[in-house]
């Protein structure tokens, strides 16, 4: 039975819970990635104060489950946890937590990296930048908007 933990949450993400949920005696290594809101200052002096996340939840959860299944085809994974926030994520707080346990560490690193890279490509989730002057703008990669947060710049 695959008991991966895949959730979209409106409350603070618990990386502690994520690690516990993938801990397993069959695993020798666990890799955990947290994507966090990075402080930014716009050219005109405004400060980023938060990212607001919105999800098409039913679709995003289906996509995250399919993504976990793809990772399982590529690496000998013991357990996966993928948690994503919706709502406001303040500077320094995590918007996404991915944890992967595997028998050997190389696979944990590779699978975790794959999961966050792919999650950013086509999962139905969007972020909006919220600035200190009250302005806000959606982040849509490639639209020439100022890219902020972990995801846009890589």
């Amino acid at each position, binding site marked *: 039975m695959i008991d991966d933990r895949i959730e979209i949450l409106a409350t603070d993400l618990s990386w502690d819970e994520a690690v516990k949920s993938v801990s397993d005696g069959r695993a020798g290594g666990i890799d955990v990635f947290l*994507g966090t809101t990075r402080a930014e200052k716009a050219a005109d002096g405004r400060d980023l104060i938060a990212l607001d*996340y*919105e*999800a*098409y939840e*039913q*679709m*995003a959860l*289906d996509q995250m489950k399919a993504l976990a299944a793809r990772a399982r085809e590529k690496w000998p994974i013991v357990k996966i946890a993928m948690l*994503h926030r919706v709502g406001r994520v303040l500077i320094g707080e995590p*918007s*996404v937590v991915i944890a992967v346990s595997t028998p050997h560490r190389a696979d944990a690193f590779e699978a975790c990296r794959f999961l*966050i890279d792919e*999650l*950013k*490509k*086509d*999962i*139905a*989730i*969007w*972020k*909006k930048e919220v600035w200190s002057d009250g302005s806000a703008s*959606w*982040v*849509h*990669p*490639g*639209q020439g908007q100022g890219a902020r*947060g*972990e*995801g*846009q710049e890589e």
Partner: protein
Amino acid sequence: MQVTARFFAILKDRAGVAELILELPAGATVTSAIELIVKQFPAIQSDLKRAAFAVNRNYTNTDLVLSDGDELALIPPVSGG
């Protein structure tokens, strides 16, 4: 037939609508549904150019023929993570 249209992120903001129920003739495609939506919400036209579409929570191309009860989602470029 009836198809539910859902708007997300910038498309939701531009349209001022999160969800609506379209009344479509039998045989209508994603393209014809989108044309109807653009008539009602011209403000989304430029952003729609970069949007993808999902029917019943799977990405689809615009040739797909819709069925009664389908959920059509307008998906701007994603930015999760």
